[in-house]
């Protein structure tokens, strides 16, 4: 088992390095220049001398390979650099937003899992009956409705009916749990619904497949109770693809809720990514993309561990 964990962990490092190189090159291929966005956009008269001075200050006048080496040396020292837009350390810019994004991802995952597992099991067990049809309708609707649109509807409903708008600024859960939940519960519900739809369908189809296996038929033939068959024999084996879907969706939620964050004015990672790209803040884009990639890599690593826990045969292969 330890060798399995070590092997999986070691695989993360070259993946992250490849991602770093790719990000560094890609952000520089896209046309645009932070100095122009910052100094020239307003239409003010700015002398070429000022523009050159700003480029020099940001290190943009150095050769590309030189900029890459600087960035890599910083990474070795665990220093992601300084945001070209705000002058703040990239790590600080990210950490301010990460708390919100992580909490939202956890809340949405809890909601989605709490809804998806029972509904998926129910639909599989009652396949073809009205319960199954109802679950299918609810989950297809969840897939069809974008979470940002559901968010807009929620806000309009709350405003029109209750003259209430969730708080617009983030308060840490530890500082004021009530204010924190008042803000995050609505986006968590909007995102969790779509997320649960994906997981429900996956749970249903995986369970249906397992329920057709010979060993389950044998269990039925032995006269075991339905609950025991489901819990002990079917569900455990059906969980692998469900865990994969839940894990990947979780990783997506860290940086992928761009529009939903805009709708609820959430100061999260998704919004920061959009701002950084539109401002061509190279150092911040690099840091953020690396975070998102690291999120996926770590989640995949955890999924691999969960696989091994669910099915010990995986670790020995």
């Amino acid at each position, binding site marked *: 088992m330890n060798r399995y964990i070590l092997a999986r962990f070691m695989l993360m490092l070259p993946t992250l390095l490849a991602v770093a190189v790719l990000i560094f090159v890609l952000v520089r291929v*896209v*046309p*645009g*220049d*932070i100095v*122009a*966005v*910052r*100094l*020239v*956009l*307003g*239409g*003010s*008269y*700015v*002398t*070429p001398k*000022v*523009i050159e*001075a*700003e480029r020099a*200050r940001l290190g943009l006048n150095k050769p590309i390979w030189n900029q890459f080496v600087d960035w890599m040396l910083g990474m070795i020292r665990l220093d992601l650099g300084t945001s070209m*837009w*705000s*002058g*703040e350390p990239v790590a600080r*810019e990210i950490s*301010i*937003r990460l708390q919100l994004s992580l909490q939202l991802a956890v809340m949405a995952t809890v909601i989605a899992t709490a809804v998806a597992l029972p509904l998926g099991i129910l639909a599989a067990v009652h396949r073809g009956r009205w319960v199954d049809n109802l679950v299918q309708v609810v989950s297809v609707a969840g897939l069809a409705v974008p979470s940002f649109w559901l968010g*807009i509807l929620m*806000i309009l409903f709350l*405003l029109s009916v209750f*003259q*209430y*708008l969730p*708080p*617009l*600024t*983030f308060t840490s859960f530890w500082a004021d749990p009530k204010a924190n939940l008042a803000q995050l519960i609505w986006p968590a519900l909007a995102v969790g619904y779509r997320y649960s739809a994906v997981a429900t369908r996956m749970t249903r189809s995986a369970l249906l497949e397992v329920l057709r296996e010979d060993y389950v038929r044998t269990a039925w033939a032995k006269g075991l109770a339905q609950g025991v068959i489901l819990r002990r024999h079917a569900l455990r084996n059906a969980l692998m693809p469900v865990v994969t879907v839940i894990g990947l969706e979780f990783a997506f939620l860290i940086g992928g809720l761009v529009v939903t964050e*805009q*709708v*609820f*004015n959430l*100061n999260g990672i998704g*919004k*920061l990514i959009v*701002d950084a790209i*539109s*401002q*061509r803040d190279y150092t911040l884009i690099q840091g953020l993309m690396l975070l998102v990639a690291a999120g996926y890599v770590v989640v995949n690593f955890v999924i691999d561990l969960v696989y091994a826990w669910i099915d010990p045969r995986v670790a020995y292969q």
Partner: protein
Amino acid sequence: MQTIRSVTGVLLVLLLVLVGFSMPGTAQQPRSGGTLTYVVTALPPSFDAHRETTFATLHPMKPHYNLLVKFDTHNYPKIVPDLAESWTSSKDGMTWTFKIRQGVKFHDGSVLTSRDIKASFDRIVFPPEGVISIRQAMYQGVKSIETPDPQTVVFRLKWAVPSFLDKLASPFNWMYKAEILARDQHWYERNVMGTGPFKFVEYVRGSRWIARKHDEYFERGKPYLDGYVALFITSRSAMMAALRSGQALIEFRGVSPAERDDLRAALGDRLQVQEGPWQCNLIVAFNTKKKPFDDVRVRRALTLAVDRWAGSRALSQIAFVGPVGGVMRPKSEYALSDTELMKLAGYSRDIQQSRNQARALLREAGVPENFSFTLLNRDVSMPYESVGVYLVDQWRQIGLNAQHFQAETANYLATLRAGTYDAAVDFACDFTDDPDVQLSKFVSSDVSPINYGNYIDRPLDLMYFQQSRTADKATRLQVVHQFEKRLLDQQVYVMYVLWWQRIVPHWRRVQGYTVTTNHYVEPDMAEYWLSE
């Protein structure tokens, strides 16, 4: 007789009282207390206004600072004292002497002197190595800044700068503390220390900026508010929800007509809407290095095809544009009258005749029917998209096929600067009508880095130079109008489409606010108060 006089007197007094109560703004005395929450729709880069150009720096942070002199937001463009209590100019306009208020305190309790004013302006006019002063070019006429005593600052100029006071009143010219600047010229990029009506409390990046009242502010009784909170909300729908719910009471930049109507419908009498002209405009820049836009006949045809007067009526219903004008803001002291304006290409009320002329010019220039070109535009809906679509339609009516290409802002700017476009919707916004500022964009491209037309025109440069050094207002005006005629009519390097119209809705309980011609001189936070 005596009784009649008494009765008349009583009636007059009653009438005056009634009139007084019915007039808005005169009935209520400013009330102290409360926190004003407002929206800022962009994120500030640094905290240092000397190096920034965006309102996103001004709106949350300006209340921490004072200027030397400032624009009166109730009577724009009148200039009133701020840290300077009075000033004089020598007869030749070459020396300006400012008397500084006594007892003005920074938020750390230290007293402001002329040394702080000099250090701040030295940083703006003569920035040391490594310091960016973005408006340095505006102060080319300044020779030296002197402080003969702690309450006096003297500006000596190289030539008489006609709008020198307007330039000093730039809302970006925050006065910093000399001692801090002497220690670290970059300190203000990430820290706050001013003399303004509000002290800094907290900034959560991307979320909120919080300030509280400066109890030792030099204006007695002000500020009225206990504090303010600026919420950074970049999404329009979230901003509208914030205003509608009352979580924010105002946004100082402006909304579209549709957004105004939505808020009116939702809030009714609780909402007040102030509207007025805006010192921002949309223009079309032609790439004079590219065929057929190197031909003045083609450029002239393009401007002749656009019906600005009808466009103003139609587009003002859906976008925050409206006034028709030339290079100077319509109705400003430098603007051409409508009669004069209509003599320029593209401003005639007879659009059919103009379009006939346009077609003839295109034929003469050898431009084929259905000629295709690209109109570069920003992918910002308000007001760029509406105006871009309107232009495409107008040009179609003279047989041109313009493809509307909306690029994301950084990409748009990169294309403009690379000079790889055909025609582009460009824009300018500023805090003053001063021709030095308004015309600087249009001098030759080897002089102005923000001239995207790629043309060299020395006569135009000379006119710019002349107006900039002409103290006599009437003569200066003449030169400005010559410049305008050459730019828009004779050479048609650019065409002005429409100027913007500001619409600022706010909750009625926000008092003391008057909409001005630009969003840079606001907020004047010491003036605002909450009625409940």
